Protein backbone atom coordinates (compact mmCIF):
# COMPACT_ATOMS: atom_id res chain seq x y z
CA UNK A 1 0.00 0.00 0.00
CA UNK A 2 1.66 3.18 -1.11
CA UNK A 3 0.42 6.70 -0.57
CA UNK A 4 -0.99 6.97 -4.08
CA UNK A 5 -3.24 3.95 -3.66
CA UNK A 6 -4.35 5.07 -0.20
CA UNK A 7 -5.31 8.51 -1.57
CA UNK A 8 -7.14 6.89 -4.50
CA UNK A 9 -9.11 4.69 -2.13
CA UNK A 10 -9.93 7.59 0.20
CA UNK A 11 -11.22 9.85 -2.59
CA UNK A 12 -12.96 6.90 -4.23
CA UNK A 13 -14.73 6.08 -0.95
CA UNK A 14 -16.02 9.67 -0.75
CA UNK A 15 -17.19 9.40 -4.39
CA UNK A 16 -19.03 6.13 -3.79
CA UNK A 17 -20.57 7.35 -0.54
CA UNK A 18 -21.80 10.55 -2.18
CA UNK A 19 -23.24 8.73 -5.19
CA UNK A 20 -25.09 6.23 -3.00
CA UNK A 21 -26.29 9.06 -0.77
CA UNK A 22 -27.70 10.84 -3.84
CA UNK A 23 -29.82 7.75 -4.47
CA UNK A 24 -30.84 7.35 -0.84
CA UNK A 25 -31.80 10.92 0.03
CA UNK A 26 -35.33 12.06 -0.62
CA UNK A 27 -34.91 15.81 -0.37
CA UNK A 28 -33.25 17.43 -3.43
CA UNK A 29 -31.06 19.74 -1.36
CA UNK A 30 -29.43 16.74 0.35
CA UNK A 31 -28.86 15.19 -3.05
CA UNK A 32 -27.24 18.41 -4.28
CA UNK A 33 -24.89 18.53 -1.30
CA UNK A 34 -23.84 14.90 -1.76
CA UNK A 35 -23.26 15.59 -5.45
CA UNK A 36 -20.96 18.48 -4.47
CA UNK A 37 -19.04 16.03 -2.26
CA UNK A 38 -18.69 13.65 -5.23
CA UNK A 39 -17.37 16.45 -7.43
CA UNK A 40 -14.83 17.62 -4.85
CA UNK A 41 -13.56 14.07 -4.39
CA UNK A 42 -13.34 13.67 -8.18
CA UNK A 43 -11.15 16.77 -8.28
CA UNK A 44 -8.81 14.92 -5.91
CA UNK A 45 -8.78 11.95 -8.27
CA UNK A 46 -7.88 14.24 -11.16
CA UNK A 47 -4.96 15.60 -9.14
CA UNK A 48 -3.77 12.03 -8.59
CA UNK A 49 -3.87 11.51 -12.36
CA UNK A 50 -1.72 14.58 -12.94
CA UNK A 51 -4.52 16.70 -14.39
CA UNK A 52 -4.15 19.74 -12.17
CA UNK A 53 -5.93 22.21 -14.45
CA UNK A 54 -8.88 19.86 -14.90
CA UNK A 55 -9.08 19.49 -11.12
CA UNK A 56 -9.18 23.26 -10.63
CA UNK A 57 -11.83 23.70 -13.33
CA UNK A 58 -13.83 20.83 -11.84
CA UNK A 59 -14.03 22.65 -8.50
CA UNK A 60 -14.65 26.10 -10.01
CA UNK A 61 -17.13 25.24 -12.78
CA UNK A 62 -18.83 22.07 -11.60
CA UNK A 63 -18.90 22.36 -7.81
CA UNK A 64 -18.95 26.15 -7.97
CA UNK A 65 -21.11 27.31 -10.85
CA UNK A 66 -23.34 24.43 -11.93
CA UNK A 67 -24.21 23.19 -8.45
CA UNK A 68 -24.92 26.73 -7.25
CA UNK A 69 -27.39 26.97 -10.14
CA UNK A 70 -29.03 23.74 -8.93
CA UNK A 71 -29.19 24.93 -5.31
CA UNK A 72 -30.67 28.26 -6.43
CA UNK A 73 -33.35 26.46 -8.42
CA UNK A 74 -34.18 24.17 -5.50
CA UNK A 75 -34.57 27.17 -3.22
CA UNK A 76 -36.48 29.18 -5.83
CA UNK A 77 -39.03 26.43 -6.42
CA UNK A 78 -39.20 25.52 -2.72
CA UNK A 79 -38.80 21.86 -3.63
CA UNK A 80 -39.98 19.48 -0.94
CA UNK A 81 -39.50 15.83 -0.16
CA UNK A 82 -40.27 13.71 -3.20
CA UNK A 83 -43.10 11.25 -3.21
CA UNK A 84 -42.20 7.66 -3.87
CA UNK A 85 -44.15 5.63 -6.37
CA UNK A 86 -44.18 1.87 -6.29
CA UNK A 87 -42.20 0.23 -9.05
CA UNK A 88 -43.38 -2.92 -10.75
CA UNK A 89 -42.62 -6.18 -8.99
CA UNK A 90 -41.22 -7.82 -12.13
CA UNK A 91 -38.54 -5.11 -12.29
CA UNK A 92 -37.42 -5.87 -8.73
CA UNK A 93 -37.63 -9.64 -9.24
CA UNK A 94 -35.50 -9.71 -12.36
CA UNK A 95 -33.70 -6.38 -12.15
CA UNK A 96 -31.70 -6.87 -8.94
CA UNK A 97 -30.26 -10.33 -9.81
CA UNK A 98 -29.55 -9.09 -13.33
CA UNK A 99 -27.84 -5.98 -11.96
CA UNK A 100 -25.69 -8.04 -9.60
CA UNK A 101 -24.78 -10.51 -12.33
CA UNK A 102 -23.91 -7.76 -14.82
CA UNK A 103 -21.89 -5.84 -12.23
CA UNK A 104 -19.87 -8.88 -11.17
CA UNK A 105 -19.24 -9.86 -14.78
CA UNK A 106 -18.19 -6.36 -15.79
CA UNK A 107 -15.96 -5.91 -12.74
CA UNK A 108 -14.30 -9.26 -13.33
CA UNK A 109 -13.63 -8.50 -16.99
CA UNK A 110 -12.27 -5.02 -16.29
CA UNK A 111 -10.07 -6.10 -13.38
CA UNK A 112 -8.82 -9.23 -15.10
CA UNK A 113 -8.35 -8.31 -18.71
CA UNK A 114 -7.44 -4.64 -18.82
CA UNK A 115 -3.81 -3.70 -19.11
CA UNK A 116 -3.03 -2.81 -15.51
CA UNK A 117 -0.34 -0.28 -16.25
CA UNK A 118 0.52 1.95 -13.36
CA UNK A 119 -0.34 5.64 -13.45
CA UNK A 120 2.25 7.65 -11.59
CA UNK A 121 1.46 10.89 -9.80
CA UNK A 122 2.36 13.88 -11.95
CA UNK A 123 3.25 11.64 -14.88
CA UNK A 124 1.41 13.88 -17.30
CA UNK A 125 1.99 17.58 -17.85
CA UNK A 126 -1.58 18.68 -17.31
CA UNK A 127 -0.70 22.29 -16.48
CA UNK A 128 -2.69 25.22 -17.90
CA UNK A 129 0.07 26.11 -20.38
CA UNK A 130 -0.01 22.76 -22.19
CA UNK A 131 -3.79 22.50 -22.05
CA UNK A 132 -4.10 26.02 -23.46
CA UNK A 133 -1.69 25.27 -26.30
CA UNK A 134 -3.74 22.21 -27.21
CA UNK A 135 -7.08 23.99 -26.82
CA UNK A 136 -6.19 27.00 -28.96
CA UNK A 137 -4.30 25.17 -31.70
CA UNK A 138 -5.57 21.64 -32.32
CA UNK A 139 -9.04 22.09 -30.87
CA UNK A 140 -9.69 25.66 -32.01
CA UNK A 141 -12.76 24.85 -34.12
CA UNK A 142 -14.57 22.83 -31.40
CA UNK A 143 -13.68 25.58 -28.95
CA UNK A 144 -15.31 28.23 -31.14
CA UNK A 145 -18.35 26.03 -31.73
CA UNK A 146 -18.81 25.59 -27.97
CA UNK A 147 -18.86 29.36 -27.61
CA UNK A 148 -21.80 29.45 -30.03
CA UNK A 149 -23.43 26.63 -28.03
CA UNK A 150 -23.07 28.63 -24.81
CA UNK A 151 -24.59 31.70 -26.49
CA UNK A 152 -27.58 29.67 -27.70
CA UNK A 153 -27.97 28.13 -24.24
CA UNK A 154 -27.98 31.57 -22.60
CA UNK A 155 -30.63 32.87 -24.99
CA UNK A 156 -32.71 29.71 -24.59
CA UNK A 157 -32.56 29.91 -20.81
CA UNK A 158 -33.61 33.57 -20.84
CA UNK A 159 -36.51 32.89 -23.22
CA UNK A 160 -37.69 29.80 -21.32
CA UNK A 161 -37.44 31.18 -17.82
CA UNK A 162 -38.90 34.62 -18.51
CA UNK A 163 -42.59 35.09 -17.85
CA UNK A 164 -44.90 35.45 -20.84
CA UNK A 165 -45.66 39.17 -21.04
CA UNK A 166 -49.44 39.40 -21.17
CA UNK A 167 -51.24 36.13 -20.61
CA UNK A 168 -50.99 34.76 -17.06
CA UNK A 169 -49.97 31.15 -16.71
CA UNK A 170 -52.80 28.80 -17.50
CA UNK A 171 -53.54 25.90 -15.22
CA UNK A 172 -54.15 22.37 -16.40
CA UNK A 173 -57.87 21.87 -16.29
CA UNK A 174 -58.15 18.11 -16.33
Amino acid at each position, binding site marked *: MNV*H*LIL*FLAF*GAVCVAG*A*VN*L*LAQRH*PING*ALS*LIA*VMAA*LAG*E*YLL*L*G*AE*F*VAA*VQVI*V*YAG*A*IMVLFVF*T*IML*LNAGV*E*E*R*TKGSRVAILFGIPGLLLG*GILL*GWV*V*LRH*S*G*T*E*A*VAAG*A*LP*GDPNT*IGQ*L*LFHEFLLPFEITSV*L*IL*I*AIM*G*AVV*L*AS*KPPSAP*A*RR*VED
Partner: protein
Amino acid sequence: MVPLSYYLVLSGFLFACGVAGFLIKRNIITIFMSIELMLNGVNLSFVAFAAHWHVLAGQVFVFFVMVVAAAEAAVGLAIIIAVYRTRETLNVDQVNLLKL
Protein backbone atom coordinates in the same frame (compact mmCIF):
# COMPACT_ATOMS: atom_id res chain seq x y z
CA MET B 1 0.73 3.36 -8.40
CA VAL B 2 -2.93 2.78 -9.18
CA PRO B 3 -3.92 0.52 -12.10
CA LEU B 4 -6.10 2.00 -14.81
CA SER B 5 -8.80 -0.58 -14.14
CA TYR B 6 -9.46 0.81 -10.65
CA TYR B 7 -10.27 4.19 -12.17
CA LEU B 8 -12.51 2.55 -14.75
CA VAL B 9 -14.40 0.60 -12.08
CA LEU B 10 -14.97 3.79 -10.08
CA SER B 11 -16.06 5.61 -13.24
CA GLY B 12 -18.45 2.82 -14.15
CA PHE B 13 -19.88 2.80 -10.64
CA LEU B 14 -20.56 6.54 -10.75
CA PHE B 15 -22.22 6.17 -14.17
CA ALA B 16 -24.34 3.27 -12.90
CA CYS B 17 -25.43 5.32 -9.88
CA GLY B 18 -26.43 8.11 -12.27
CA VAL B 19 -28.47 5.72 -14.41
CA ALA B 20 -30.14 4.25 -11.32
CA GLY B 21 -31.00 7.71 -10.00
CA PHE B 22 -32.36 8.70 -13.40
CA LEU B 23 -34.64 5.67 -13.38
CA ILE B 24 -35.87 5.52 -9.78
CA LYS B 25 -36.06 9.18 -8.77
CA ARG B 26 -39.34 11.06 -9.12
CA ASN B 27 -38.18 14.62 -8.48
CA ILE B 28 -37.21 16.31 -11.74
CA ILE B 29 -34.32 18.23 -10.14
CA THR B 30 -32.85 15.03 -8.69
CA ILE B 31 -33.14 13.42 -12.11
CA PHE B 32 -31.10 16.31 -13.51
CA MET B 33 -28.47 15.83 -10.83
CA SER B 34 -28.26 12.15 -11.77
CA ILE B 35 -27.42 13.21 -15.33
CA GLU B 36 -24.61 15.38 -13.94
CA LEU B 37 -23.35 12.35 -12.00
CA MET B 38 -23.24 10.33 -15.23
CA LEU B 39 -21.25 13.08 -16.96
CA ASN B 40 -18.80 13.14 -14.05
CA GLY B 41 -18.25 9.41 -14.32
CA VAL B 42 -17.47 9.78 -18.02
CA ASN B 43 -15.06 12.64 -17.25
CA LEU B 44 -13.14 10.44 -14.83
CA SER B 45 -12.63 7.78 -17.49
CA PHE B 46 -11.53 10.48 -19.97
CA VAL B 47 -8.83 11.72 -17.59
CA ALA B 48 -7.78 8.18 -16.62
CA PHE B 49 -7.32 7.18 -20.27
CA ALA B 50 -5.46 10.43 -20.97
CA ALA B 51 -3.01 9.58 -18.19
CA HIS B 52 -2.76 5.98 -19.32
CA TRP B 53 -2.01 6.60 -22.99
CA HIS B 54 -0.14 9.87 -22.41
CA VAL B 55 -2.43 11.77 -24.76
CA LEU B 56 -3.56 15.15 -23.45
CA ALA B 57 -6.56 15.34 -25.78
CA GLY B 58 -8.54 13.40 -23.20
CA GLN B 59 -8.18 16.26 -20.75
CA VAL B 60 -9.28 18.77 -23.39
CA PHE B 61 -12.42 16.74 -24.03
CA VAL B 62 -13.27 17.01 -20.33
CA PHE B 63 -13.63 20.75 -20.88
CA PHE B 64 -16.03 20.22 -23.77
CA VAL B 65 -18.08 17.83 -21.62
CA MET B 66 -18.16 20.49 -18.90
CA VAL B 67 -19.35 23.12 -21.39
CA VAL B 68 -22.14 20.83 -22.58
CA ALA B 69 -23.06 20.09 -18.96
CA ALA B 70 -23.22 23.79 -18.14
CA ALA B 71 -25.38 24.57 -21.19
CA GLU B 72 -27.62 21.62 -20.41
CA ALA B 73 -27.99 22.70 -16.77
CA ALA B 74 -28.90 26.26 -17.76
CA VAL B 75 -31.51 25.25 -20.35
CA GLY B 76 -32.81 22.34 -18.28
CA LEU B 77 -33.31 24.36 -15.13
CA ALA B 78 -35.07 27.05 -17.16
CA ILE B 79 -37.39 24.34 -18.52
CA ILE B 80 -37.97 23.09 -14.95
CA ILE B 81 -38.91 26.62 -13.85
CA ALA B 82 -41.30 26.96 -16.81
CA VAL B 83 -42.87 23.56 -16.03
CA TYR B 84 -43.23 24.42 -12.36
CA ARG B 85 -44.87 27.72 -13.24
CA THR B 86 -47.62 26.00 -15.23
CA ARG B 87 -48.03 22.68 -13.36
CA GLU B 88 -46.92 23.64 -9.83
CA THR B 89 -45.37 20.23 -9.32
CA LEU B 90 -41.89 18.75 -9.64
CA ASN B 91 -43.05 15.14 -9.73
CA VAL B 92 -42.39 13.65 -13.16
CA ASP B 93 -45.34 11.27 -12.82
CA GLN B 94 -47.67 14.24 -12.96
CA VAL B 95 -45.89 15.85 -15.90
CA ASN B 96 -46.85 13.55 -18.74
CA LEU B 97 -48.00 16.00 -21.40
CA LEU B 98 -45.88 18.37 -23.42
CA LYS B 99 -49.00 20.42 -24.00
CA LEU B 100 -49.95 22.96 -21.36
